[in-house]
């Protein structure tokens, strides 16, 4: 056991730090052109798609360097390394693994160069957790598929240019995981209608999408017809190192501690209240647990041992922290804790109040806690399926 970095790794950390010092101005000094030039610079460095094979324009970055990069970016509160989160997280990896030569050439560079934003069309009104039961239908006619049906909760759909879409190409199947196909579809295809949905925090970043006789050329199919389930499941399982998240959570905890020090309860300093102290300590302990769980799983990956579904452990820890941290800040602040941005009473610019409405992003998106528990119990502990 050791936490030492090799000289090369240490040098890499220095390189990232120096870069950030030079190229990342404080938040309030970032002008309108900042993001574009940031994306260009990190791309030049090879940090976008850092772990991707060099033949596709990545940097072949190792797991530890990747963790260092994420950690430093999170510590510096840097913007993302590319404009398309989903493009980098699973569309790109899916295409590299299952795509044709032509698809790779066509899609990968644009993801790396932040030229195209992708969204993910998996969930449907009647099929969320039970994703394999999707019904959105595609029929092969001549040189294209004709898609009819509906998707929903598609994050980024209002501004994405492309969608990775799961459709059903066969209905008479023995098990529902068969007969699913994955298509890559331009969002401006005729017959696509996007209706943004407002969430409880007042934002409109997800949408429902209606497909009416949308023509998708056969060459836009990712993987074989009927293999859509494997294509997407393996892509989703891609990288799930939680180092960056943990860094952010420690940072949120620090803000919470600062708030506690500035707050009184019943006229007395909140920081002297044993219940307040205990709750902060429980948060800190759980975030630390995420950190060391993550390092343990990372070590296993480095040693080439396949991870089973252990990442669900940190996902569950994070889900409850996400809700509790914000709620505790609000509770501490009394009625002012509920004030949103713009109010004279707002605490920390209303950020806690806003967070207390935003947890579904993390808790529901990507699989609910109950589904994570099923995964752990069935795949790790070997319990029978529901």
């Amino acid at each position: 056991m050791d936490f030492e970095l090799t000289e090369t790794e240490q040098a890499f950390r220095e390189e990232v730090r120096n870069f950030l010092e030079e190229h990342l101005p404080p938040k309030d000094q970032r002008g309108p052109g900042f993001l574009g030039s940031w994306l260009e610079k990190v791309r030049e460095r090879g940090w976008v798609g850092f772990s991707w094979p060099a033949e596709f324009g990545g940097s072949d970055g190792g797991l530890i360097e990747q963790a260092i990069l994420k950690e430093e970016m999170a510590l510096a509160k840097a913007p993302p390394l590319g404009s398309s989160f989903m493009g980098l997280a699973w569309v790109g990896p899916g295409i590299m693994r299952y795509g044709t030569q032509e698809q790779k050439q066509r899609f990968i560079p644009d993801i790396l160069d932040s030229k195209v934003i992708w969204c993910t069309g998996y969930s449907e009104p009647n099929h969320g957790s039970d994703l394999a039961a999707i019904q959105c239908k595609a029929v092969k006619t001549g040189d294209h598929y004709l898609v009819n049906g509906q998707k929903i909760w598609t994050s980024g759909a209002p501004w994405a240019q492309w969608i990775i879409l799961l459709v059903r190409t066969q209905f008479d199947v023995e098990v529902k995981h068969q007969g699913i196909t994955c298509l890559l579809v331009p969002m401006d295809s005729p017959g696509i209608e996007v209706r943004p949905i407002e969430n409880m925090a007042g934002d409109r970043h997800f949408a429902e999408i209606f497909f009416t006789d949308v023509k998708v050329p056969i060459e836009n199919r990712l993987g074989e017809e009927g293999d859509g389930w494997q294509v997407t499941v393996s892509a989703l399982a891609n990288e799930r190192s939680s180092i960056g998240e943990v860094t952010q959570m420690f940072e949120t905890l620090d803000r919470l501690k600062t708030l506690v020090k500035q707050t009184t309860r019943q006229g007395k300093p909140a920081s002297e209240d044993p219940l307040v102290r205990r709750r902060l300590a429980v948060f800190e302990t759980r975030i630390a647990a995420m950190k060391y769980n993550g390092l343990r799983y990372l070590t296993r990956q480095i040693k080439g041992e396949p991870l089973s579904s252990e990442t669900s452990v940190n996902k569950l820890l994070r889900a409850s922290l996400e809700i509790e941290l914000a709620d505790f800040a609000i509770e501490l602040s009394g009625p002012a804790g509920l004030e949103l941005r713009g109010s004279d009473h707002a605490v920390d610019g209303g950020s806690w109040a806003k967070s207390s409405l935003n947890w579904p992003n993390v808790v529901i998106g990507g699989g609910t806690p109950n589904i994570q528990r099923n995964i752990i119990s069935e795949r790790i502990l070997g319990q029978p399926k529901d």
Partner: protein
Amino acid sequence: MNFGFSEEQNLLREQVLRFMHEHCPMSRVRELIASDNPFAAQLWQQMADLGWLGLITPQQYGGVGLKWVDVTVVLEETGRGLCPLPFASHLLATATVLRCGSPSQRSRWLPAMAAGHAVCTLALCDDGNWLHPDAVTLTGQRTTDGVRISGTKPLVGDAKACDYLIVALRIDGKLALAGVATDSVSLTAANGLDATKPAADVHFDNLLISEDDLLPLDDADFHYLCDLGAVITTAEMVGAAEAALQMTSEYAKERIQFGKPIGQYQGVKHRLADMFVDIESFKSLLYYAAWTVDDAPDELPKAISYAKGYAADAFAQVGIDAVGLHGAIGFTAEYDVQMYLKRSKWARPAYGDSDYHLERVATLGGI
């Protein structure tokens, strides 16, 4: 960066597992705890011969000279099997001599301890509900020929199995430790609910201790030893909790109710998942704490308070649910799962409960 175990450590784990399986399975544990002293000299000697009793003892004192991460591996596995031998107590006593003993005391005691000839335990607090130097109240009177002790040290772990006790006391108001032969004191066995962790009150009747057998102890030593006690306890908790989960998980696959294995019901399966999440978490924190002992001692207090602060309550709940998810069979004396519930109750306050450790996390975290 490598937050995992080495090949040697994995082999050590297999060795301990095999030992527990062959020589100290649950049937043997039950035999031992049914007697009034669950000590088996032959097993102890085997542990010594395998090098485990001197694992952290430097080679110059007859030990193996390994680290706390290595001994954690042994503790996890002895904990998994609820081994009732005084391995944990003896380890803490060894660490005490290493930390507080003079060179001549180390040479005198450590080789015999590593060889298994002198079984030892450490008795710190008189108020067992207070992890603080002020909780040491037993007093020794200085006389011309040494120090005389009268009084009682309550609930000393494994006292009966031990040849020597290292006892904290106050001499002229100042903290110190005394090495005491068990046959020079009298013991009253306690009757704790976890018989795998026996204890006794130790009575001193004007006992004379020579200067040679006194060790200095200051506040920092006191806290350090408590932290090591918590590392040891939590390492055993990891193994024990995993065993309780495994037992319950296996049962849930086999027990059929309403025509299905109970593990198919989410009331059961989700609780099992939550147990897994908690155990994984305090295990990771414990590994980190064990690593700090040798490699980042400044971080030990916070690291062990994370681990024990998490484990104390989480393992208690694992113990309760492990029994509960079994139904009535779990409540029977004959079924092993109840022994883990008992261990969880023993471990919860040992070397600090969650209140103690979480308060320290808050303080060390700047609150």
